[in-house]
């Protein structure tokens, strides 16, 4: 009675070991072979199956966008810093603060517009179907991260002022 049970348990353990071993080896191999830690645009190639020519076009657009984005982000951070360090008017909103907030809103709008324009341009550099999918995905992702972005920028600004 006991011997067949042990054999069956042994077979099950062996089977589980084969499955687990194959799983981890395969996953590890996949991570090593497919990961491209230096390439910011690797996701586009992976997700949207782009050709080298399409990737080269997008690379150019990306390199053009990054300095513009950094410039506006720096302006936003500076404006927020300015508002935070401005002498407070107690519980009243001063005219200078109101103007500062309006300027901050304009900068945020400019940042968003610039980002959406970049997404649109990149989507146009892709095959139509992939471009539509990319644009939808980016709109979904930006909607959820916009708030985090602003919070993070204010954190960056306070870090920069602390140096």
């Amino acid at each position: 009675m006991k011997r067949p049970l042990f054999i069956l348990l042994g077979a099950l353990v062996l089977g589980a070991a084969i499955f687990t071993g194959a799983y981890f080896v395969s996953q590890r191999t996949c991570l090593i072979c497919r990961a491209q830690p230096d390439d910011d645009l690797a996701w586009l190639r992976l997700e949207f199956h782009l050709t080298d020519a399409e990737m080269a076009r997008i690379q150019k657009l990306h390199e053009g966008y990054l300095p513009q984005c950094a410039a506006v982000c720096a302006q936003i951070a500076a404006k927020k810093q300015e508002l935070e360090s401005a002498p407070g008017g107690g519980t009243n909103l001063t005219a200078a603060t109101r103007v500062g907030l309006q300027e901050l809103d304009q900068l945020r709008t400019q940042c968003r517009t610039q980002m959406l324009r970049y997404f649109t341009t990149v989507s146009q550099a892709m095959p139509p179907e992939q471009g539509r999918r990319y644009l939808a995905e980016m709109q979904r992702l930006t909607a959820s991260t916009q708030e985090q972005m602003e919070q993070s920028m204010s954190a960056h600004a306070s870090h920069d002022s602390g140096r």
Partner: protein
Amino acid sequence: MKENMNPNDAPLSALLRAARPSPSLPPRFQENVWRRIEAGGAGAGSAGWLATLVALVMKPRFALAGAALLLLAGAWLGAHEGTQVVRQDAQGRYLAAVMPGSLR
């Protein structure tokens, strides 16, 4: 000597039976015997089922097919998971690049 042993010798048989009296059976003997037979039969059935399964598992063709199937399933699932992880990492990196500060 041989000619003295007659199996049809009735007086001799009676004498032998009287010399070796059979002991009386314990109470509920027959019931207990049947119970043990039934219990033995049930145990043998479960052991038989297990033994049949083990015999099947131990067949080289079956064992090899099972091992190959598990190997392929594990490799497929690992590759699938690995691709997902790579894709998520790459997506995070791209978002961090186009939305500075959002994911850092």
